[in-house]
């Protein structure tokens, strides 16, 4: 019996010929990630561990300040300082403070810290993003991260895999975000719990790296442990531009066993929207626009859709226009590099001229942290990945999740709008 892509990577990292679903393994990690919130708790745990003085390898740990940056208050600042002091003390090589990094999941691939075949754990549930590069990557809590800091290993239960096969060519204004929202809608928010998602098919072969990032990122929204793509020429070119570290490209065996195989034809897919209050409450945009839904805030950003490609789509739609009155648009480029690229391309000016507030890279409004928190009774449409009650602030607010194009179209009209309805963006 062959192995899935996830099983292959896990087997190699625990020195076994073969692993199978359900098996508990001790795997070596290539990289351990934490942000200022998860790191603070992990550092506290590590300080309390007898015999834990040093991290296993200061070149294999990445610490990124992104959730409350620039610090929203003294308490947030003290967590960031705790992480910075730890980075200095432990000589952590990959430490990114505000102004040098951005959102952790945008920064790590950009910096060449993610390569195919690697095993990465992070103190953040969206660590699964790195599956876009053919890596096994999963999120954990701070105590597990503290253990990984000092041991360079984690215990894992080998997940069974669900194979998703996408066929067909998407219509104009339909993006990877729409495909993934549809997928989460189909699987349900616990439909892939304890499972690996393996993405296949001609549609995803054609997708850009950013598109694959968007899809791998939201594997956790179906409860999955990880979501993974096969690395191809595009992946290898992207990674080799950023690192000369050797890596091993793994492939699923032809006779690998999958718990389920789901085929999704995207040819007829409309733009999709996740309605309040769960990311699996997904509907085609035509159903959503049947109700006239005015919005108070549009948010563009996050580790799902805070990339240069996303900002280009938004800028193309807003170019030379003004956003609707009685609405605010907040844009958080995903990283410092994305911000600089967007500045060079004139995108930031286009957005600002249209009436958008452009923030410093970071998580900001995505998790109701700061820089765009929603108030009682407000409705937002957002390019982010979660719309649980209170996710972006008030528990009495409503969050709709959609693609950058759908969010930009809604910014122009002031209500949830089908981007295909905008005549001038005909592809």
């Amino acid at each position, binding site marked *: 019996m062959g192995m899935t892509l996830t099983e292959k990577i896990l087997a190699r990292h625990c020195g076994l010929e073969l692993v199978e679903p359900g098996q508990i393994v001790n795997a070596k990690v290539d990289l351990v990630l934490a942000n200022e*919130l998860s790191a603070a*708790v992990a550092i506290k745990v590590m300080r309390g561990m007898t015999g834990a003085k040093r991290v296993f390898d200061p070149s294999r740990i990445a610490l990124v300040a992104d959730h409350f940056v620039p610090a929203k208050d003294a308490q947030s600042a003290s967590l960031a300082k705790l992480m910075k002091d730890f980075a200095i003390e432990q000589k952590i090589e990959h430490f990114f403070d505000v102004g040098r990094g951005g959102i952790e999941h945008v920064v790590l691939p950009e910096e060449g810290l993610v390569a195919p075949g690697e095993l990465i754990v992070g103190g953040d549930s969206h660590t699964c993003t790195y599956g876009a590069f053919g890596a096994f990557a999963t999120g954990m*809590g701070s105590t597990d991260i503290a253990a990984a800091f000092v041991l360079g290993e984690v215990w894992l239960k080998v997940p069974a895999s669900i194979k998703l096969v996408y066929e067909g060519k998407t219509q104009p204004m339909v993006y990877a975000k729409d495909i993934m929202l549809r997928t989460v809608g189909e699987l349900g928010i616990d439909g892939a719990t304890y499972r690996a998602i393996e993405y296949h098919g001609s549609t995803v072969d054609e997708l850009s790296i950013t598109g694959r990032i968007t899809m791998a990122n939201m594997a956790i929204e179906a409860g999955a442990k990880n979501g993974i793509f096969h690395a191809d020429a595009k992946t290898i070119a992207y990674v080799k531009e950023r690192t000369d570290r050797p890596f091993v490209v793994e492939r699923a065996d032809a006779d690998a066993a999958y718990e389920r195989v789901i085929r999704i034809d995207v040819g007829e897919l409309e733009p999709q929207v996740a309605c309040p209050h769960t990311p699996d409450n997904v509907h085609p945009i035509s159903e959503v626009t049947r109700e006239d839904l005015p919005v108070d805030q549009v948010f563009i950003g996050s580790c799902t859709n805070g990339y240069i490609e996303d900002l280009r789509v938004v800028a193309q739609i807003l170019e030379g226009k003004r956003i609707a009155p009685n609405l605010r648009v907040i844009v958080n480029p995903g990283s410092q590099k994305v911000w600089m690229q967007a500045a060079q391309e004139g995108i930031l000016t286009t957005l600002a001229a249209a009436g958008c507030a452009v923030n410093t890279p970071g998580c900001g409004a995505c998790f109701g942290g700061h820089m765009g928190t929603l108030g009682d009774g407000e409705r937002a449409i957002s390019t982010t990945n979660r719309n649980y009650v209170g996710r972006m602030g008030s528990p009495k607010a409503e969050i709709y999740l959609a693609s950058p194009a759908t969010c930009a179209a809604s910014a122009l009209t002031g209500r949830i709008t089908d981007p295909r309805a905008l005549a001038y963006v005909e592809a």
Partner: protein
Amino acid sequence: MESKLRGHAHKYGKNVDTDVIIPGKYCNIIDPIELGKHALEGLDPEYTGRMRAGDIIVADTNFGCGSSREVAPIAIKGSGTSAVIAKSFARIFYRNALNIGLPIFESAEAVDRIESGDEIELEPENGTIRNITKGESYRAAEFPPFMRSLIDAGGLVPYVEKRLAERN
């Protein structure tokens, strides 16, 4: 873990996510007692005012879905809640709860039978759930052997300490 836990049930639905267990704005707090003051605030702002130390959260499927924030189980524990009974738990929350020593019980039968306000007694050692109000008892799913050995070793931290000692 203590041998017996006792308190009244507070019942909730499915998919109780980490954003309602401890809203993002409080994630810059690391003190368990401070976090505990906001436990479940996004779902039931009255919870911490109404509950008494030892009380038990009872919920449907997929409890703790969403973020990896360990402050979610820490907040529940910090509030004085003694345990969570659910039909199923989200993966990261399950690991975190065990790592920080928040007792969790998986039992569909218990969740279906228990009503808010019922007095419950729990034995984490053997997974017994006793409904004192109704005079019934239910069994929680057993922990997989590896998890059991971690729990018996006192949790992940002692396990890591042992591994470190072996290396030196």
